[in-house]
């Protein structure tokens, strides 16, 4: 591989791409964007991303959106590389991202625990993103996308999505 340098304007363009299923978050907020480099000799940009879930159907859209954003920023020669290790974790969602999620009515994830070894799972309390109450209940362990579960607030009665710790 030729030596590549971090590219700040290409990174800005790629980092502004929105997640197609959580339209309030950028792929940078989400931790999906891992690296952006530019080959100084050819100007070719390489963007490295990682999927949230292996079967995430949004990945193709994200790749296309990154290429479109880079082309618009003057980097037509761009390649998007997908890596799987280290595996994505909700711990990578930025503080700004968590605030945006809560503002959009999606309860942000708590810390991701150890992945294995619990025969009977524990669910920690999730605060209602609408009224802040801790008196909430899980309605469904899976939600509208692979990364969410569905909850209901007993205090304000509103249903809400929760991005589950992963």
């Amino acid at each position, binding site marked *: 591989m030729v030596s590549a340098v971090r590219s700040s304007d290409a990174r800005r363009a790629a980092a502004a791409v929105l997640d197609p299923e959580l339209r309030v978050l950028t792929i940078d907020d989400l931790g999906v964007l891992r690296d952006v480099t530019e080959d100084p000799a050819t100007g070719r940009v390489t963007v490295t991303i990682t*999927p949230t*879930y*292996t*079967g*995430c*159907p949004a990945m193709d859209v994200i790749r296309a959106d990154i290429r479109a954003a880079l082309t618009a920023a003057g980097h037509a020669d761009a390649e998007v590389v997908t*890596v*799987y*290790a*280290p*595996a*994505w974790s909700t711990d990578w969602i930025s503080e700004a991202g968590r605030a945006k999620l809560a503002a959009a009515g999606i309860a942000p994830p708590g810390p991701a625990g150890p*992945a*294995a070894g*619990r*025969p*009977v*799972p524990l669910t920690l309390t999730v605060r209602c993103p609408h009224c802040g109450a801790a008196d909430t209940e899980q*309605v*469904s*362990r*899976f*939600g*509208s996308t*692979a990364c969410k579960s*569905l909850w209901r607030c007993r205090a304000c009665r509103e249903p809400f999505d929760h991005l589950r710790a*992963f």
Partner: protein
Amino acid sequence: MEYLLGLGDDALVAAQRLGEWVTVAPELEEDVALANIALDQLGAARLLLGYAGELEGAGRDEDALAYLRSDREYRNCLLVELPNGDFATTMAKLLLLSAYQLPLYAALSVGADERLAAIAGKARKEVAYHLDHASLWTVRLGDGTEESHRRMQAAVDELWPYTVELFAADPAAPVDPAGLRSAFLANVEPVLETATLDRPADGWGPDGGRAGLHTEHLSYLLAEMQVLHRAHPGARW
């Protein structure tokens, strides 16, 4: 390559079976859950089959391997190809599969093959949630009504022999399958106990899946899965 096909085919066939529940699951939440689990399995299958195709070096990609192999060329275990049966059977299958995949992926995630380790490390996190889900349902049904208990016990009894194949010796495996059995049992036995279900006795189990000798159920599954691709080669949405 054969070993990767086994891993990938387990995930692919499990995904296809789970997908059959879409729109007909007992409740809407479960419809969404089974579809999401199927999607996780499909995601792992795509990565594993894609890698298997690259190792083979004959120009076959994930689609060629998924859509253009016949039943005799599939390397999945028999457990995943069995019909869904009732909801208890589906949950028992998911419990046994995820309880096996979890220690398997955990072992592969620290293995020498970096590419496989990356895929396994990712899939492992997802499978842990599948195991949680299947465990909750097994307890709910096993420790539920008389009828749900009867069905859950029947499902576990019927499927238990199919787990023998999962731990059979495989010279191509980077992880000794027999060594995974204690972790598998540690995942399953406490759940069965909490669910007030009897853990079936060990004994003979049907096998042959890893060698391409399948039940007829796989042929029907593949026929449905492959028909469009075979009828319209190279078609794009």
